[in-house]
């Protein structure tokens, strides 16, 4: 463990710190932005999409820098990527199902699938 090595270690450490500070500030700004963004009504599912987009950016900041994915081993990156792929499958399929469930064989009026459900949920 020579001096040179130690210095190297240290300035390595320092420019790490710079990055972390930037990320930290970035996250704070991101949070403020989502709150502001939620004030504008885009209507439909746009609000959710926007909020999700910002959240994904913030999350990837944490993943890549705070969780060191950037300098992680290839296999670790693979694990992370694969997991998110699987996550998407899990999230997408039920929604796709529900969305396409009434494409056919839905009559108007009293056969509306929700007609029977009394409005307020507090009908125990």
């Amino acid at each position, binding site marked *: 463990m020579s001096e040179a090595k130690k210095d190297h270690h240290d300035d390595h450490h320092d420019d790490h710190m710079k990055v972390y500070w930037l990320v930290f500030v970035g996250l704070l700004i991101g949070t403020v932005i989502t709150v502001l963004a939620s004030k504008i009504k885009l209507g439909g599912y746009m609000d959710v999409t926007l909020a999700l987009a910002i959240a994904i950016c913030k999350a990837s900041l944490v993943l890549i820098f705070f969780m060191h994915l950037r300098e992680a081993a290839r*296999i670790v990156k693979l694990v992370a990527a694969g997991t998110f792929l*699987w996550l998407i*499958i899990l999230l997408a399929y039920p929604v796709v199902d*529900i969305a396409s469930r009434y494409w056919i064989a839905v009559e108007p009026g009293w056969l509306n699938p*929700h007609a029977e459900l009394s409005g307020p949920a507090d*009908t125990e």
Partner: protein
Amino acid sequence: MATATAEHHENYLTELKTIKSWLLTLDHKRVGLLYLFSIVFFFLIGGTAAALFRLDLATAEADVLSHETYNKLFTMHGVVMIFFFLVPSVPAVLGNFLLPLMLGAKDVAFPRLNLASWYIFMIGGTFTLVAVLMGGVDTGWTFYTPYSSTYANTNVIMAALGVFITGFSSILTGVNFVVTVHKMRCPGLTWFRLPLFVWSLYATSLIMVLGTPVLAITIFLLILERGLGIGVFDPKLGGDPVLFQHMFWFYSHPAVYIMILPGFGVISDVMACFSRKRVYGYEFVAMSSMAIAVIGFFVWGHHMFVSSQSIYAGMVFSFLTFLVGIPTAIKIFNWTATMFRGSVWLEAPMLYALGFIGLFLIGGLTGLYLSTMALDVHLHDTYFVVAHFHYVMVGGMMMAWLCGVHFWWPKMTGRLYSAYWSKMSAILVFAGFNFTFFPQFIMGYMGMPRRYHIYPKEFEVFHQMSTLGASIMGLGLLMALCYFTHSWFRGEKATQNPWYAFGLEWTHTQTPPITHNFEEDPVVTREAYDYEDESIYTNEDKARA
């Protein structure tokens, strides 16, 4: 090439004898045996339940059992057999014992975690058994809402907790195995030199890690719904019971592959050994395991064709299900082709392996019926389904498990079992099994619904066949239990490599292995299943000397 030294050392069984040394062991081999004893125990419980209601089903009326008792029995049979026998059977017992040996490693990557997962498994098991003792559960192993969350008045929460906890045991095992396969391979052991058993374990572990947590959270939500009234799936609050089925099957269909893939691995190794020949199309068999593991995640919806899920989603699921059939077909052909121009030795493990191929073939082909939408509408929730998954799970997985246990028993215990009786039991189990479940295909197409306690008269004759066959199968299994017990205490000492098998666990360490597996760290220089390797045949004498 390095080989085990001649004189017999203390082995992992004899080195320490105290109970404490077993309960606190970090040795993957001992953990494997702990699992072996525990799941045999659970298997007996599940089997007893099955025996009871099969007896009752012999006649159309309710003879011995009340409706409640019947429902509780088949639920107990399902929960215990699936979560406490089938899922851990090969990975936790054979996998734990063999994985490091096959990789030439001293242990799995995380020995403590390994032991911990056994304890978690036992805690989960205890919860389930307590649920049974407190009066049982009657929801079926699928825990479908809203029946399980609102209407059932049995110990759903307790049983669900058991499943929830056990889930983490298999997650941790999965993490352990994946890391072990990646990081613990000995020099020279490249990916395509791995035994196919390791490939299948690897695929299984991936499913365990990615699938099981979803079951955990689903069960967790079910518990919240039942316990606190957080009605996430409650239709009375606008919730969607079909969503529960989606989340449940997202794990529980891949779980089917958790149960069967390790079986594939066992069969591959055994076919190679008893044909003295490399498995035909090694790369294809290995890759097909991975393919099954991946595609297996995209097909869960075929359990829900009549559940009022979207017909379009249904079509996608149906299509993908057929795709899973292809790699499975490849495996069957390759195993059969492995014997071609080989040197076939019909010992008990081989009999089980051949039985597996036959039964799993039928199981797989009848799977096609159930992925065909129009047919599944008729067959869903009938005895056809029951027969199908018993052909895959019992005819496939249980046979594979027995096959593996027969194959590696000498390595585990250092003792041999009676060749004659083992063959007898193999034949009895095979015959009894077919007699039990084949009639159920016919019944199923005639429309006999599953989970029926009393049923129309015309099905009686088929049920009586089933009951008869079940008793034959039970006889065969008890036989196996007997000669294994005998072998454990009095069995003849095994030589280092009684089957002349290829593989580090046979050629590079004594029988039974020493605690740290290998005298000197092995180095692999040969391809997998290289039965031209003479050391296979010479070790025999070295060990004797």
